């Protein structure tokens, strides 16, 4: 047994312990924080499994964004809604849980033992990748080979925002619990961090074609900046979705649709990206759309306006 496997075991045990704590614990606030920690450990697992793209995405989106959304919702529903104790007879649930858990373990282990299929999709991707001009196989799958999935995923994000707008009803945008800006640190943090995040986001986006990174990791960084700006009051939520907001929210999906459907008109199969320009166009539009969508979902707002305006 190598040192690496020992680290894996500790990580695995921590994951199990944290997940148990998160689903059964008594204090919701603390368990949300523990859930964020859980997400960060999952990100470490991705790194251990050799998937840096996923580690980046998990840390920023899975742990960071989900956690921020959860904490925000927790604040909105108020501390007086602390849950009642769990149901009296968890016996059945325990049996179901143990059964499903062992089921997954048994079939998971069995699946590990199977010899790799010679022409698995993953190998086909590596073979076909040079033809796309991309160096990062994951980006290749996301944008070229399985672009339909990614396009529909953008639709899922759009629907989540439209759905949130629907259940928001006619209510004023949720009151965002803002950080007190009179503290000198927060203001200067923003002036330092905002340009850096922009730089990092663009770097991730461009790097994503050949190295770990891409639109999803970049958008997560931008969203972080957006969330910070909402929290500090630099951006204020509004109740109306202006034209620019609506345009930017659909931009990612629209870019995909235009390129994907347009390919049909010029004699290619639908969803064919006819050049590197298409990759950059779609990735940039996706990054902006996702970042704005997520920031709006965080602020539970239909639009955002600057502090002064």
């Amino acid at each position, binding site marked *: 047994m190598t040192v690496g496997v020992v680290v894996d075991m500790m990580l695995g045990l921590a994951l199990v312990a944290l997940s148990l704590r998160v689903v059964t614990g008594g204090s919701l606030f603390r368990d949300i924080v523990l859930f964020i920690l859980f997400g960060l450990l999952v990100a470490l697992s991705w790194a251990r499994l050799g998937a840096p793209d996923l580690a980046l995405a998990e840390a920023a989106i899975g742990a960071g964004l989900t956690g921020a959304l959860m904490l925000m919702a927790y604040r909105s529903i108020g501390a007086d809604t602390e849950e009642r104790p769990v149901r009296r007879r968890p016996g059945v649930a325990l049996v179901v849980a143990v059964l499903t858990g062992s089921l997954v373990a048994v079939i998971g282990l069995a699946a590990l033992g199977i010899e790799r299929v010679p022409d698995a999709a993953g190998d086909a991707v590596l073979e076909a990748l040079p033809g796309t001009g991309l160096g990062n196989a994951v980006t290749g799958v996301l944008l070229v080979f*399985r*672009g*339909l999935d990614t396009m529909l995923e953008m639709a899922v994000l759009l629907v989540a925002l439209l759905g949130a707008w629907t259940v928001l009803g006619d209510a004023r945008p949720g009151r965002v619990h803002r950080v007190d800006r009179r503290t000198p640190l927060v203001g200067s943090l923003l002036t330092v961090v905002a340009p850096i995040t922009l730089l990092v986001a663009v770097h991730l986006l461009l790097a994503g074609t050949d190295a770990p990174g891409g639109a999803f990791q970049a958008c997560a960084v931008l969203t972080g900046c957006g969330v910070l700006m909402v929290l500090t009051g630099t951006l204020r939520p509004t109740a109306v979705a202006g034209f620019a907001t609506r345009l930017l929210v659909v931009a990612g999906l629209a870019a995909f649709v235009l390129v994907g459907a347009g390919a*049909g008109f010029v004699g290619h199969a639908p969803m*064919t990206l006819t050049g590197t320009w298409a990759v950059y166009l779609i990735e940039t539009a996706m990054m902006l759309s996702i970042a704005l969508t997520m920031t709006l979902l965080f602020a539970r707002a239909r639009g955002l306006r600057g502090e002064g305006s």
Partner: protein
Amino acid sequence: MAPDALAVLVFAPLVAALAVIVAPPRATTALALAGIALTAPALWVVTAAVLGGEVVEVALAGAAPPLGIAWRADGFSLTMAWLTFVVVAFVSLHALASFPSTSDAGRRFWPMWLILVASVYALFLSADLFNLYVTLELVTLTAVAMIAIGGAPAAMRAAMRYLLLGLMASLFYLLATALLYGQTGTLDLYQVGERLGEGALATTALALMITGLLVKSAIVPLHVWLPAAHGKAPGPVSAVLSALVVKVTLYILIRLWFWAGGALDDGLAAFVLGLLGAVAIVYGSIAAIVQTRLKMLVAYSTVAQLGYVMLLFPLASTAAFRAVTFHVLAHGVAKAAMFLAAANLLAALGSDRLQRLVGADQRYPVNVLAFALAGVSIMGLPPSGGFVAKWMLLEAAWQSQGWGWVAVISAGSLLAAVYVFRVVALAYAQPRPASSVRRPGTTPRGRFGATSVAALALAVLAIVLGIASAPVLSLIDLGLPPGMAP
């Protein structure tokens, strides 16, 4: 030509959705109708090609499976696509009146409606396990959001329950997808079918997947979310939920079972699924009979009618496949009509308590007629589409000497007659003199107009489907599972 038409089916509603979001509200009606109408000629082109004997197929981005995703249309998926078009077209007419595009509710409704249409088409064209997961999530999220559109607490509770169960079901499905991919190295359903050997691993993965699909299809005992969700949603949304949204998972289930389910070919699993269907038929019908509210009654009727689809698994014959596919069509059209009529009556009477229906035929004859005609099909009386479906199903059960299934099918029709007649009898009952005075909250709305016409048109179509079943059946024959001959 035909492969490009497949793209139009998905892209036309999607582009319309994006345009509706960005454009000013007054353009919404035109854009939405254009997006939906454009799919009709596309469907026609694809149908012509399929009737010509080919399977229309396009590898997206030129990457054929296992590398990428392919869209594929055979008789089965095309039948479902036509159901989608018919239901969506008429329900959209209703929604034009119930969700005017300039109202707040309308502005929220139309983009999601169009995305739902696009994702249902995309689902029926796709046979890629992961792509199906994405489209399923899209369908579920839009459906949940549209249930909550009215903002009533009861509707939002129903939406929340549906969402939680739906997400859980998706995870089961996704876990199974992961295992199947690990085993076969492909996500294409047909290739999975070819490569997946028999064995405990394959069986378990498929069982996980089927469990997830059963939850989303609301098959008893996993139906708990359906009645409230379908009963509390706004009229057009209820209609499309019952007519289409629960069918998409059944479609995947049938595809999976008959095209890739070699590992499940042991009779017991099929029998269990059939048994669930039988329980659903009896339980759903009885629950519908005891309801006191019209929309809840219709919702429980859906629980019962979905049970018939499950009988396909134990019967597993060409006759049963034709019957069940036709049943999905007939039920979809009739149930959409029923929900629209019920919603119109609810809007007109201010309540959908069954007692309030007394004498409704005199004030709202069109809607009551629509409900009654749709009821004829749901009960399976001739000459409706429901009759043809149930008759064929009975024949299939008879041929395979499944006497138990025969009994269940007959009992289901009798029980359906009870709940349908209960409503119809009340509506046509002579009102007592006192109640002929218009009650407060009773508005003349819904007497005529687009909403009633949409309900009636769908109901008439449910009847016509029975008279003109031959062309539909010939289309279904072009999508039979491997190993079944017409």
